[in-house]
């Protein structure tokens, strides 16, 4: 294993030091507990939005802290949920009197730690709502598993809820909008290679030189099945078919199409995939109103991609287009 690190135990702290060095003018970095917070937090009268999760998915979540998106993020160790004391501190740090939204990806650890944070926060007199993202259609038998995982749609929920909070919406309204985006979003991912956590130093799974894994999670969880690698058109079809069938998306739907890199995939290849996604969408009569292409919710150095489609309404489009100013996502004013 070769990695650009000082030591496996210090990788999260060292990356936060980098965030502070790069963005310290706009972000406040806390090391005990780990937090990335808007420097101007709490914004009085605005709903605060926090998220958190294991590290290794950068830029999610710390890279999405800033005006128009998150007020704070709680990074855990690599692929490990953050802890309730972090979430509680972040909640207090961003509470501007209008309550705080927790955006939680559906993973056993994340859910349990955010639950404990909510238990601990009951004495703090802060109104908290939770939006749980669970858009991964690769998880088929959700009755007998921990349920569908939260993946690509999380980025879109954070952006759209962030804009709604800026627009002065109430906590209940922002939460409802977040749940609507999640309910209208579906994702699926694939890998060309596994990833290696700094702690284990071992690949998360074994793949032959000519094999791909379809339906992977973002922590190196193996997927639905393996097959010999085919052209990008075939891989896009493998991911798009279950997504389209699941919601289902139907002809005339306006959608946001998000092609996400898993961390080690060249942007060149992501655009190759996007061309296939656009073609398949067109064949199904979908109108791609907005798109996002790049590495936003990653799995360390894994090569591969995920595709997310969200069925849009006018509010979602307006909030998607609203200004955002974070290290990883920035447009408008």
């Amino acid at each position, binding site marked *: 294993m070769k990695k650009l690190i000082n030591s496996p*135990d210090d990788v999260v702290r060292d990356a936060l030091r980098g965030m502070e060095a790069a963005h310290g003018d706009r972000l406040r970095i806390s090391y005990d*507990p780990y937090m990335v917070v808007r420097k101007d937090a709490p914004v009085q009268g605005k709903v605060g939005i926090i998220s958190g999760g*294991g590290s290794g998915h950068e830029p999610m979540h710390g890279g999405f802290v800033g005006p128009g998106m998150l007020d704070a993020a709680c990074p*855990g*160790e*690599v*692929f*490990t*949920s*953050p*802890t*309730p*004391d972090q979430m509680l501190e972040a909640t207090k740090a961003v509470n501007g009197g209008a309550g705080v939204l927790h955006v939680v990806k559906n*993973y*056993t*650890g994340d859910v*349990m*730690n955010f*639950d*404990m944070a909510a238990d601990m926060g009951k004495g703090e007199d802060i109104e908290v709502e939770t939006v749980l993202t669970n858009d991964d259609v690769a*998880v088929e*038998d959700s009755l*007998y*598993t*921990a349920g569908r*995982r939260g993946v690509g749609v999380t980025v879109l929920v954070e952006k759209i809820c962030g804009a709604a909070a800026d627009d002065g919406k109430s906590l209940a309204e922002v939460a409802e909008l977040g749940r609507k985006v999640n309910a209208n979003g579906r994702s699926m991912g694939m890998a060309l290679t596994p990833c290696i*956590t700094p*702690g*284990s130093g*071992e690949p*998360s799974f074994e793949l032959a030189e000519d094999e791909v894994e379809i339906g992977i*999670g973002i*922590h*190196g*969880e*193996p997927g639905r099945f393996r097959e010999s690698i085919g052209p990008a058109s075939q891989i896009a079809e493998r991911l798009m078919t279950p997504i389209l069938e699941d919601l289902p998306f139907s002809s005339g739907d306006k959608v946001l199409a998000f092609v996400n890199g898993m961390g080690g995939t060249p942007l060149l290849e992501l655009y190759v995939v996007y061309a296939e996604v656009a073609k398949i969408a067109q064949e199904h009569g979908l109108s791609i109103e907005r798109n996002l292409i790049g590495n936003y919710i990653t799995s360390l150095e894994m090569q591969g991609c995920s595709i997310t489609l969200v069925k849009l309404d006018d509010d979602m489009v307006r909030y998607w287009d609203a200004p955002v100013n974070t290290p990883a996502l920035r447009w408008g004013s």
Partner: protein
Amino acid sequence: MPIDRDAVVDWMRRFAGEMGEHRQELVRLDTAIGDGDHGTNMDRGMRKAMEKVEAAELADPGAVLKTVAMALVSSVGGAAGPLYGTLFLQMGGALAGQERVDLPGWTAAWRAALEGVQARGKAQPGDKTMVDALIPAIEALEGASDLDEGLTAAAQGAEDGMRATTPLVARKGRASYLGERSKDHQDPGATSTYYLFKTAAEALSG
């Protein structure tokens, strides 16, 4: 001999030692069916817990276990943090104020721990989790006639329960996403729980 504060500190010290010693084994088991962080997290968490325990003036077994619980909750993360945190918090609560714990008290504390873990993680027996090591261990305690016999039988019960997770299909946690592919792997959470009962038998007997 009843269990006192020093014995419980010794138990936790030994458990922390096992988590350090078996860190890679737990990482390997977790990499096979989970996300590969269990050994690293438990080692980090128990080292932190022992720092807190050694630094504090703790009056009784319950206070020691509560200190361990809070350290794990705030340092482990993942699923193991809340689950082991809840386990030790419930045990500590059940033992509150008891300077010396006998077999019935010890068994009741474990029963409370199991209930807490199941309330937090929603796992049922056979879901391929730490619950599958906890239940046979606690049943062994409940069937014992004295403390030493109970501690030995509980360690054996946890070991049997841990081994019995190998053929199971996971229904909770990240391993559940593998479905049938989670078979033929021993559960890492049940494995760390076995070390908890193994070290209890070593530290608390006779």
